[in-house]
């Protein structure tokens, strides 16, 4: 079983975002970096599959050379090796990103049985790269997976929708995107971290393309400017809240 997990380096923004002076990016001077939340579940799923069935787990990302930091920290979880498609640090549009990932996957000697993405990125939220990759590789794709087993070369997956749980089965090779809740991602062990330093990270270059979805500028979304009306402290404020709830017709 050879598994590939695609990752994205993203800043770990807390409660508030600050923009760079040109408003083209988030100011990251004072921020650490990590990967998108669902991607931790993707790596955990890959590690578990290789533990159970043998084989290899490769990590793939497109980003600045600093993204090696995220690859190393996920190699420490138990991945075998990693590939970094190095950019100039600029954000690539979804079509350009997908094309570069596809080229890198096609250039691999390993033919991956399963490719896993996180359900969505924390930052750009384009909702399309995984689908473009699936089309280019002519592979079936199941998105937003919340439970997954591999049985006799078939990915048996559930996704959670408003009306309940949908059940899917698809023969490998396939692509899945996974959601938070799929598993509980483990922390790296100390020996894991030591080994990760020596694991291979292949650096590749790709030529940027002219973006068809062209970012012009970013702005902070307005929050409610008036702020909350403080009704009071502790249980003494309950009567005031009951009046509010009556007024809006909550009961």
């Amino acid at each position, binding site marked *: 079983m050879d598994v590939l997990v695609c990752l994205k380096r993203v800043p770990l*923004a*807390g*409660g*508030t*975002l600050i923009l760079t002076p040109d408003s083209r990016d*988030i100011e990251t001077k004072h921020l650490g970096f990590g990967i998108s*939340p*669902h991607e931790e579940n993707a790596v955990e799923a890959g590690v578990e599959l290789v533990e159970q069935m043998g084989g290899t787990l490769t990590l793939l990302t497109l980003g600045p050379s600093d993204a090696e930091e995220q690859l190393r920290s996920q190699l420490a979880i138990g991945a075998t090796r990693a590939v970094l498609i190095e950019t100039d640090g600029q954000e690539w549009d*979804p079509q350009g990103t997908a094309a570069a990932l596809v080229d890198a996957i096609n250039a691999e000697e390993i033919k991956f049985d399963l490719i896993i993405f996180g359900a969505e990125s*924390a*930052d*750009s*939220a*384009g*909702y*399309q790269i995984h*689908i*473009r990759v699936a*089309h280019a590789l002519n592979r*079936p*794709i*199941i998105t937003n997976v919340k439970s997954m087993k591999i049985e006799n070369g078939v990915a048996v997956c559930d996704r959670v*929708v*408003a*009306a*309940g*749980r*949908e*059940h*899917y*089965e698809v023969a490998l090779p396939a692509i899945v995107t996974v*959601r*938070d*809740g799929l598993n509980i991602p483990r922390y790296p062990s100390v020996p894991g971290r030591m080994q990760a330093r020596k694991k291979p990270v292949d650096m590749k270059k790709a030529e940027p393309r002219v973006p*068809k*979805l*062209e*970012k*012009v500028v*970013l*702005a902070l*979304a307005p*929050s*409610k400017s008036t*702020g*909350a*009306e*403080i009704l009071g*402290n*502790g*249980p003494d*404020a*309950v009567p005031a*809240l*009951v009046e*509010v709830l*009556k007024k*809006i017709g*909550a*009961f």
Partner: protein
Amino acid sequence: MILVLVDHDRGELDQLSLRALTAARKLGQDVEAVVIGSEGATLAGIVGEYGAKTLHVATHANITDYTPMATGRALKDLVEKLKPAAVLAAGSPRGNEQLAHLAAFLDLPMAAECSEITLGSPHHVLRARWAGNLIESANVHAELLIATVLAFSTEPETANGGATTVVQFEPALQPQDYAVKVLSRDAGESKGGVTLVDAKVIVSGGRGVGGPDGFGQIEELATLLGGTVGCSRVVTSSGWRPHAEQVGQTGTKVAPDLYIAAGISGAMQHIAGMKNSKTIVVINTDPEAPILGYADYAIIGDLHQVIPALTSAIRQAKG
């Protein structure tokens, strides 16, 4: 002409699609709608009311449920025939996914979660990023605009429209288009009854609830208000509540009439999932908690005291 994918779940209309139809009308061109699967034909009435002159119904023996790649193929067939200026859908997980298949088939850009759309050359959009905390101004360089409409950015308005002409068509599906389809479905983690998406009232608990037992009082209040229970990510990661109840970017995005957030400080990813609620009430010990920036009303205090007092006061008031 603007073509709008109207999504439905086994014939049940996706309400966000009405907002997409409304957003499409604002572009000043004729609007036509498309539904995937024969069950969608029952939506002709409402689609007409929202201003679509024609409803295209994609029917095929292998489209029996949600089959996103088949949707992409059907939309591609329709786009090639009708040559619309734009294809829009709701900015829901399903809307985004189905239009991404169309964009992949045509190798055209797609702009997801747009709050504003201006057709032109290039097209221009404002779209949500970082769980709605950032707005990106972007140009889309393609003749055909493929875009989804940010959930809750447009209020649904009827057009007092008349009858819709229903046109059936059979897309030329390839076997790989329906290789991935729903094999079965059960109520699973959802509790039946009121789901998070449909709830008018949601009472959500966060880290401040302290553990699974603390949710008894949250449930009681939610039930009393005819609503349902939600929670933050830390609650599901700690295993206190099922993931189906998680509100936020990695959980469910909601916009109820009333959202009560108890013991939730307001991480960006949680705010993203609830900030469009009509009225937001916060109960929190910390007067500096980020969630207060999004709230309408707040009580500064310990939820373990405030919620039981609130529950009994509402019981009394109800008589």
